């Protein structure tokens, strides 16, 4: 398997006095697809946000593709070029068209010429099946379309790792499938990804590993088959009982 592409070593983080991540150890291999689940407040979003520096860890080490995250903003910016992120609230830029949303980072950060950036952008938009919306503004798209554009926007930077923070939680039920399908495509093409989600069916079909977090700790992690069939920890069993359909 080789060196892990993401490594978290005894990572601790506090929000004020609230100990949100407690001694978290995690190693993610290249190409591995990980699903993180757990009750709200368990620290799952905070965990993945530490990987691209949106949250700063107070203790421990976060190493991404061999580079350790420090508070030096140049290191952080370098890592962010390799790590793409998709948010629960999409966070598309409403004042730019879909195409401009996707080409903004390649032009500003990678200093790509506009024509090349636009060509690449259209490829990515086609990949998530929203190529025909390129000239529209985000406000004119449905939730599912917006999230797919968000995925394309992140992919346009050709990251090595993709982080998904509850990508379907803000969507109407009929649009969840189209977004999950897009993420599925990506997974099948071998993208390393950390996905925080409640969609257990997705976890079963895509994940190499499922991690359960509670109160800031990784309580249990296993391949999906074992995880869902024989959860070892009582907390995991409680959680699954509440979340899985009967």
């Amino acid at each position: 398997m080789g060196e892990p592409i993401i490594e978290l070593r005894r990572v601790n983080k506090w929000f004020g006095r609230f100990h949100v991540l407690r001694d978290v150890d995690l190693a993610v291999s290249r190409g591995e697809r990980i699903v993180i689940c757990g009750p709200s407040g368990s620290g799952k979003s905070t965990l993945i946000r530490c990987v691209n520096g949106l949250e700063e860890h107070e203790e421990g080490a976060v190493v991404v593709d061999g580079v350790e995250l420090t508070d030096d903003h140049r290191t952080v910016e370098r890592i962010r070029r390799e790590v793409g992120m998709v948010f629960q609230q999409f966070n598309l830029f409403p004042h730019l068209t879909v195409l401009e949303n996707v080409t903004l980072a390649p032009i500003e950060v990678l200093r790509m010429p506009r024509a090349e950036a636009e060509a690449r952008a259209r490829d990515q938009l086609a990949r998530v099946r929203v190529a025909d919306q390129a000239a529209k503004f985000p406000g004119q798209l449905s939730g599912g379309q917006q999230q797919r554009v968000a995925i394309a926007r992140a992919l346009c930077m050709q990251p090595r790792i993709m982080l998904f923070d509850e990508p379907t939680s803000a969507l109407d039920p009929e649009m969840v499938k189209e977004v999950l399908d897009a993420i599925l495509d990506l997974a099948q093409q071998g993208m390393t990804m950390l996905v925080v989600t409640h969609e257990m069916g997705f976890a079963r079909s895509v994940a190499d590993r499922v991690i359960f977090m509670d109160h800031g700790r990784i309580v249990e992690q296993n391949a999906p088959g074992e995880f869902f069939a024989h959860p070892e920890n009582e907390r995991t069993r409680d959680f699954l009982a509440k979340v899985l359909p009967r």
Partner: protein
Amino acid sequence: MRRPRISWSTRSGRALVYQAAFLAILVLAGWALWRNTVHNLAARQIRSGFRFLDQRAGFDIGEGPVPYTPDATYLRAFAAGVANTLRVSLLGILLATPLGTLIGLGRLSRNLLVRALSAAWVEVLRNVPLVIQLFAWYLVLTELLPDPASPLALAPHAFLSKAGLQVPLPLWQAGGLVLERPEVGTFGVTGGLALTPEFLALLLGLVTATSASIAEIVRSGVLAISKGQTEAALALGLSRAKVVRRVVLPQALRVIVPPLTSQFLNLTKNSSLAVAIGYPDVVSIANTAINQNGQALECILIIMSVYLTINLVTAVAMGWYNRHVALVER
């Protein structure tokens, strides 16, 4: 077909009755006030009508772009007043906006000192009445500056004294563009563009006070942009500066423009405080006119129409601008 009945039981019937009663009361009150006014005007031998605008004004106006002498008509006097109002308001807006924006962004700075001083600026200027600030500025400019005979030289040809600020004035003459430079003489400074202490005090007071309000508007505008926008831009690898320039500021501008326009109108209305320090804006002129010929009704109507016109023009311009830059939605 049934004819609509105007009766108490139907909603529309009641509405009609209420409105008719309301109208009747208004008309009655208006008529009573009118009768009183006519009576009182006659008793004080005050004329009515706008014919006085053609008469000789008989008072002097200290400054302004409209050429005027005491022999000119009241109409010209009011025109000079309007020009002076616009002059100080437009210049005030031009100066207050960048100053306010800087201070607003300063309140959001990472540097503690910058943040604290910006906050102090805003708190002090917003919590002291504008009239007090104007009086203070005026007295400082007319009491603490040197005499006109020995002015302060701010630049090779710019002089500051109790008589105001004098700077070179570009004039279009036969040979081309020529600079008329102010010269210091025994009795003071002559020549060049003269800005009176009244004008300067009003301008400085309006600019500093309005900059505080503009700072708050800029600050709220930037804060209104959701954190998610910044995070998404940062996650893409953009530097902080680029995030502000390409993602936050363009969106903040949309939020800022409507209240900003409101502040511009406030500045224009506040310029009416000129009457307190003797700057000849339209309200000062009206005050003088009323004191001379007693035609308060007409003069007040003139001032009100001036301000309402400014409001209307600005509202129309704002409406056009809003439609032009509104975010496109479904």
